[in-house]
């Protein structure tokens, strides 16, 4: 039993005057200030946020600000091929003479939509199935969980490789394949969370006032599952981008000359070790992006997960 410090509620404001916005939302305001305070305190969380913001910014306006926008579409400029980093070409040029700096920045947009689509599909499918499996129980749960476990029984990248091999190489198929192997993680997370929330008294309380199942799922279970889901989605944005780049590297994902970081390295590998800059910069872009999303997710977990909360 620990003495839990509690803010005493000011009950003096109990007259007829309508309450101001600040008074009505005092609880939320305090909560958000606490979140902000904890987040700001952590260097790694702030670093993660900065990296993610930078990445989103580049994805939004990248194509407008790069020095050589035509580099993205595979324009050929053989006179400037494989030049080392210089003031003209910050990250050097590739075997077609395209500016690597421009291609890396434009690649942010590709990566963003890869991440959003994979994570989005996986989360929607996974949360729906997970919440149903956890709440309904019985044979519904058995079927959903068996299928989920089956998918989880094969390492994601290996399964995605097999699927892409069947569908044929290409960025769309690669994203599709990754989405197919990605949803089971959400099912498992949400199912476990739902199972534990289901046992809480407030669920029974809702049933006792006659709430129907969809109401309970939407108003009671889902909001209480959200913290770990948000954390996982943040982390998965990074991991999905990394996996798509991996397939690109193998040669089954995005096909050159499309400006995707993984496939850039795939080509660059053949120009090792003399033209080192060619693979260095796209790789660094992947690393920083994934790092950003992971640090952000980690920071969010620290403030959202009460178990890891120290104060």
């Amino acid at each position, binding site marked *: 039993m620990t003495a839990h410090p509690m803010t005493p509620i000011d*009950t003096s404001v109990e007259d007829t005057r309508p309450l101001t916005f600040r008074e009505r939302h005092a*609880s939320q305001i305090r909560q958000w200030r606490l979140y902000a305070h904890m987040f700001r305190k952590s260097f790694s969380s702030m670093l993660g946020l900065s990296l993610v913001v930078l990445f989103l910014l580049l994805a939004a306006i990248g194509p407008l600000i790069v020095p050589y926008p035509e580099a993205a579409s595979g324009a050929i400029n053989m006179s400037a091929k494989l030049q080392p980093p210089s003031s003209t070409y910050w990250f050097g040029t590739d075997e077609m003479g395209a500016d690597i700096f421009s291609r890396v920045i434009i690649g942010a947009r590709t990566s963003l939509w890869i991440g959003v689509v994979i994570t989005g599909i996986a989360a929607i499918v996974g949360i729906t199935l997970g919440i149903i499996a956890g709440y309904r129980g019985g044979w519904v749960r058995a079927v959903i969980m068996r299928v989920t476990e089956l998918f989880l029984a094969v390492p994601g990248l290996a399964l995605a490789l097999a699927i892409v091999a069947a569908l044929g190489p290409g960025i769309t198929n690669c994203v599709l394949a990754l989405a197919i192997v990605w949803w089971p993680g959400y099912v498992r997370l949400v199912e476990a969370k739902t199972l534990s929330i289901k046992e809480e008294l407030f669920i029974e309380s809702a049933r*006792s*006032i*006659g709430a*129907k199942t969809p109401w309970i799922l939407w*108003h*009671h279970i889902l909001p209480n599952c959200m913290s770990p889901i948000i954390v996982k989605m943040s982390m998965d944005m990074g991991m999905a981008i990394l996996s798509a780049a991996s397939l690109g590297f193998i040669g089954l994902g995005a096909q050159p000359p499309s400006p995707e970081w993984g496939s850039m390295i795939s080509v660059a590998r053949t120009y090792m070790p003399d033209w080192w800059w060619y693979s260095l910069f796209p790789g660094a872009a992947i690393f920083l992006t994934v790092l950003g999303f992971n640090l952000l997710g980690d920071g969010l977990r620290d403030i959202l997960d009460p178990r890891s909360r*120290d*104060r």
Partner: protein
Amino acid sequence: MTALLDIKNYRLDIGTFDGPVHVLKGINLSVNRGDTLGIVGESGSGKTVLVRSVLGIGPRNSKVVEGSISFGGQDITNLPEKDWTKIRGIRISMIFQDPMTYLNPLFTIGRQISDVIAAHEKAAGAGVSSRAARRARTEELLDQVGLPNPSMLFSQYPHQLSGGMRQRILIAMALAGKPDILIADEPTTALDVTVQAQVLDLINSLVEKLNLTVIMISHDIGAIATVAKRCAVMYKGEIVEQGMTQDILNRPQHEYTQRLLAAVPDIDVEPERVAAQAADAKPAKRSNLLEAIDLKKVYRSQSGTDFTAVNSISLAVKTGEIFGVVGESGSGKSTLARMLMRLIEPTSGDIIFDGQNISGLSGEPLRQMRRHMQFVFQNPHSALNGRHTIGDAIGEPLRIQTNMSRRDIEARAEALLDIVQLPKMFKYRYPHELSGGQKQRVCIARAIALNPRLLILDEPTSALDISVQAQVLDFLQELRSELNLTYVFISHNLAVIRQICDHTIVMKRGEIVEQGDTEQIFLSPREEYTKALIESGRKTSQAANLQV
């Protein structure tokens, strides 16, 4: 003679986001060898923090602002960790509250106790004795705390034992080092009434046999009075009163102590019925509002064995009465309550509510029926969804069951807050910002939002502090006469049952042992079990202890 333990003007702060919280404010306390000191206080009084500071395991982020703790003449206020190893567990040891979480689930009982013995031998510098010698000592300790078959227990794991046995094992562990001071932190709170009495007896006999110095903290004055000769009362981080236990119980000086003692329900006092007048106004012959006929619940475990939680129970609740259900944990009383409301499906049997058999209802008719009977849960802390404001929580039944507009619901929620005597602005607050008693009032407001006729209250006060419990009980009785409600009141606390129930059934292992008029049961119980239950209830009740 200097005191064995001397706490002088001790102040402790805990740093939080909202600034430092003063947890302990100028504590002065001394314990002599051979003393038995009790510290009484409700949750948040700082009693646990105080005794943990004595052991050097106080909360993190805490800071000693002023004062000192000395033990055997040595100042231990800011003792470095390595010096603690000579004191902690050896000269001062502790019995903890919840015996399940305080034993490591992955190690055998024998291993855990003999490790403690080894640690003590090492600290004493005597060298660790042989495995067999430690085993012998462990079994001796297990025997000492009254556990049967110590040699078998030695190789068992915590999950294989009952709560009472685990508590005895914790006591054995604490005794391993022949400590100068034994601290007992709410040693009976997590246990059943009959087991509580046994554990208190054990502590008493050990005090006598081993001449122990004991500090026991508890929210339960009865338990303190059974063990402690001296006693201190803590309130909001301060000791408001200390002295001989008997004096404090008989002549409490401080206003808080008086309030606290008055709040303890007394098992041996015939209650003045608050609701008696309301009952008189009704015709003599009252109809049955709720009936259960041959109700049965059988659970089938995965291994295929059947467990009968509730076995062939029939009961009849009359309109306007408070119907008590009393029993220890595992008696099936909560299962019964949930079946009456169809929250758990009965295996067989019928439930008749207001002349209608509701055991076959499903879908929309069942939903409609729920308007008329509501449930108040044991633990208000988890009965409210932490993501919803109080206003949402109270308005939820109205949103689900009626077509009222958003504005009407808001107004009704405010009116309900008024009924349960909470300020209107609470509707913007979240559950974690409220105290336990306030939360339970919110739960009650939620339960009466649809104007039900029957409330089933499942241990509505057992998670609350004693003084709050008294308030909520009074309030419940007022509410009943105001709104014309019928209650089914479930409790393990006999004193509470006697205080408010008209008719009572006593349950044991899923069956009714005895039933009848509440006063009759308490004055002349027919069954042995009922007698034993009342007897152990008496031990932890106030009146008996005044005669100590």
